[in-house]
Each structure stands twice: as structure tokens, then as C-alpha cells.
């Protein structure tokens, strides 16, 4: 295909000196090759597509592990007090759902993670705006936030229990604190990276400061905010696990700690499974949000 396209170019250029003709032809070939390569890339992506639909091959190893695990349990090689069998776990999960124990605890856990995350997002955005929009704000807010960042939030558990007791407050506070940091860090970075030319354009259009924030600053920093949010969601589950295992009378973590007392590894594994699913689903949700909110971005990295 390349040859066929570049031949007429050579014919046209024949009256010109040979050197120029060669150069022109080379330039055209290069120009033609670029879209051709893009097309090739697209074809390759197309070929890769079926693998993204997860072929059965990808599950073989997992299924094998499960089968060995089940066989070992059935043969009595692994005691249920060390590790419950996959079938036992499935049965327990079903029972826990039917009895309402799992849904109830799940709801409590979701409430804690959700409210903690909501506080984290609100406070994180507010602080990032203060730090990102003014020099004074940056000096006042950024230094303490950078210090807080280096502090492992989980180490605050004893202090939070002393301050807030053992109710819901310390758990939500722990989630909020841990999840706020990535929101703040990414958004304030995003705000500082806004193209000053766009801010200038806003001034020539006579936009008010609020309008500049609403139309230029926040949407411009949204990709960074969403990156931060993905980290935050992950961290909020981590915080929740710890908070619920240290002291709680409800929640998935409590359910697992309770099971520990009765050597119920099946319940513990159901809890782990729930946490894994929560992490997976929340990450998926943020990614879908990302795809919707950032739909203005050209697909497949074809940006100008």
C-alpha cells in the first residue's frame, strides 16, 4: 500500500532535481507511514481485545488452586480450624447472607467508610483550594499537610480512642484522616499545574474569581482529583479494617474478630472476601466516574 501511494509522488516530482524529489518522496512516505502505523496499532489493539474479555485460560490456575485446596480439606490434610474449605466458605457465606448477619454488618461498614470518605473529600478539596489558589494559603496549609502525610494514620488509633472513645467517631475520623491526604495532595498539585494561559483567558472574558474556580480551576484539576480519589477509596477500606478490628461491636471487621474467638476460619475468610469485593467494586466505580467525567479527553492517547 505504501508503494502504491508513494509512486505517483515520485512521478510528479520527476521534473524537479533528483535530490529534491527523493527528499519529497521520503517526506511523503513518512507522512503516510504515520497514519499507517496508527492503523497498525489499532489493529493490534483489536487483536488484543478478546484477551480483555478474560478467556477461560486466565481462570485455570485459580480453579486449580481451589481444587487442590478443596481436595486437601476433604482429605483431612488441612484442619478447618486452620483453613476452611472453599465449599464450607461458600456455605457459610450463604448462611450469613440468609440470616442477615452479613448484610447488617456490611451496611454498618459501608456507612463508616462512606461518611469517612465524604468528609475526606470535602475537607481535602477545601484545603487544596486554599493551598492551590493563594501563596499565603499554601504556606499555611501545605506544611502541616506534608507533615501529616508522613505520619502513618493507623498509628493514631490509640490517640483517637482516647479522644473520641470507642463509638463511631474514632472509626469515621480515622477513615477521613487517611483518605483526605491523597485528595489534598493530588488536587493541590493539579490546581498548581493549571495552564496560566487559560486563567489569563478567563480574565480577558471578565470572569469572576468564583467563575474562574468553577469553570477553569476545578475542571482542569479534575483528572488529578480523580487519581487522588482512587487512592483515597483504597485507603478508606484499609483504615476501616483496622478501626473495626481494634474495637467495634458491629461491622465486617467485628464479625471477623468475633469468628476468631470461635476458631471460625470460614467466617474470617468470608469477611476477607467481602473486603476484596468492596475494594474491587469501589475502584471500578471510580473508574467509571472517571470515564464519564473525563469524556472530553481524546481516546487512546491521540491527544494533539
Amino acid at each position: 500500500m505504501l508503494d502504491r501511494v508513494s509512486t505517483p509522488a515520485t512521478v510528479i516530482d520527476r521534473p524537479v532535481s533528483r535530490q529534491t524529489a527523493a527528499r519529497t518522496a521520503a517526506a511523503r512516505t513518512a507522512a503516510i507511514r504515520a497514519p499507517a502505523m496508527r492503523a497498525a496499532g489499532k489493529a493490534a489493539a483489536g487483536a488484543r481485545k478478546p484477551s480483555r474479555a478474560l478467556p477461560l485460560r486466565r481462570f485455570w490456575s485459580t480453579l486449580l488452586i481451589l481444587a487442590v485446596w478443596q481436595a486437601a480439606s476433604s482429605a483431612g490434610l488441612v484442619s478447618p480450624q486452620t483453613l476452611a474449605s472453599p465449599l464450607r466458605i461458600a456455605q457459610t457465606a450463604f448462611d450469613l447472607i440468609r440470616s442477615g448477619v452479613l448484610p447488617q454488618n456490611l451496611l454498618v461498614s459501608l456507612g463508616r467508610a462512606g461518611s469517612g470518605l465524604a468528609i475526606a473529600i470535602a475537607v481535602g478539596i477545601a484545603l487544596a483550594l486554599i493551598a492551590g489558589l493563594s501563596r499565603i494559603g499554601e504556606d499555611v496549609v501545605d506544611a502541616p499537610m506534608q507533615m501529616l502525610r508522613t505520619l502513618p494514620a493507623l498509628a493514631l488509633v490509640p490517640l483517637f480512642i482516647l479522644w473520641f472513645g470507642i463509638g463511631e467517631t474514632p472509626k469515621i475520623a480515622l477513615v477521613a484522616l487517611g483518605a483526605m491526604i491523597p485528595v489534598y495532595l493530588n488536587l493541590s498539585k493539579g490546581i498548581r499545574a493549571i495552564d496560566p494561559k487559560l486563567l489569563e483567558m478567563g480574565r480577558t472574558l471578565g470572569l469572576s474569581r468564583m467563575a474562574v474556580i468553577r469553570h477553569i480551576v476545578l475542571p482542569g484539576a479534575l483528572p488529578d482529583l480523580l487519581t487522588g480519589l482512587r487512592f483515597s477509596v483504597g485507603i478508606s477500606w484499609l483504615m476501616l479494617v483496622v478501626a473495626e478490628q481494634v474495637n467495634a461491636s458491629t461491622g465486617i471487621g467485628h464479625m471477623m474478630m468475633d469468628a476468631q474467638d470461635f476458631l471460625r476460619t470460614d467466617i474470617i475468610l468470608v469477611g476477607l472476601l467481602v473486603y476484596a469485593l468492596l475494594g474491587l467494586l469501589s475502584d471500578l466505580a471510580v473508574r467509571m466516574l472517571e470515564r464519564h467525567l473525563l469524556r472530553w479527553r481524546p481516546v487512546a492517547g491521540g491527544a494533539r
Partner: protein
Amino acid sequence: MSGGVLVEGLGRAFGGNRVLDGLDLQIRPGEFVALLGRSGSGKTTLLRTLAGLDPVEEGAVSVPDQVAVVFQESRLLPWKRVRDNVMLGLDGADAGARAEAALGEVGLAHRVDAWPLTLSGGEAQRVGIARALVRAPHLLMLDEPFASLDALTRLRMHALVERLWRKHGCAVLLVTHDVDEALTLGDRAVVLDRGRIRTVLPLEMERPRRHDADFARGRQVLLEALDVGEAV
């Protein structure tokens, strides 16, 4: 002044470098002035001062209330659709309709719902022009708006700008370093050199401009004012 521009003794220095040095310039209402000059001659600083982006440190500047700028890069917000970009900062229930009308004027009625990153360079620049015109400016400033466009697109843009200028009757200040562009569009060509006006060339040829003897003479004058007279 209502519709025109008056600049008197405008000066501006960055460090020890005087970018504008006692500059005087008048633009009558509805007049099309093409501002030429080599890089660093102060063109952009003058435009930024008139746009209110740079402060007036020396001298006096008077511009109309309604000023609009079209930049070299279109400076569209990539996260807003074309219509919303044009509407930015407008209020009133008819803002959307006005934006669409302005986009129709620049020949982009079919692209109102497009995302800016899917536009070609010429289309993006036309959106920038629509965004300026929808504000019904008395002074329209164009900062090398066609510099990054290909030659054919540029010619089409010249015709478009000329048509819109005649229709809206606003004063235009076009910053460019393309001598032919200045000769094609301007009522007057002004050459800036080291922060002062070096040459003013009234252009009284009939519109649309043809590449005749007058054009060639104007070209010679401007190129000499830009110190590239011998090169042509």
C-alpha cells in the same frame, strides 16, 4: 473615548530592558490596525496592556469598555463543549442562542456540541473568534491568531476576519509578523521597533486587496521597516 483606543507615552520595563518606550498610538472606532514588529519589539506587551492583562506603569491608556482578545493558541477549555466555551462568562437566558449564532457566523454551526480537542487548528481558532465576537466588542485584538495555521487555512481565515470586521464594525488590532497579512487586512500598518513606533503606513488600496503594484510597494516599505529589505 467610546469606541477607539488612545495610548500616550506608554512605557514598560522588565528589569533593565525597556520593552515599551514612550509609545503613542491611536486607533479610531472601526479602524483595522495591523501591528508588525520583530520578536521582542513590544507587540505582545502592548496587546496585553490594552487587554488589561499587564498594568500601565508609565503613560496613559484608554480603551473601550468591551474588549475581546483572540490568542495565538485558541485557549479553549478542553472540558467544555464548543458552545459552552463560547458562552463562558455570558449571562442571560439567550446566551446559548447567541453563542450558536456566533458559531454560525464563523461557519461552525455543525460543531457546537464538539469537544475542543477534536477540532482542527483552524476550527479551534474560529471558535476563539466566535467567543470574542459574541461579546460584541468595540475593540477586537488578535494576537498572531493565524501563525500556527497552514497557508490555505490562513487565507480562508483572512477572508473570514475581513467579513466579520465589516459586519460588526469594531476596531481591530491585529498583531502579526506576516507582512502580507498586514497588507491584506489593515487600514493601517504600524511597525513597532524597540518599544516605539518606527513606521506607520496607511493602506488605502481597494478591498479585497489584490497583489498589485501598490501591494508590492507596501510590502517593500514594511519589510525595510522590519530590517529585511535586502533579503527580498
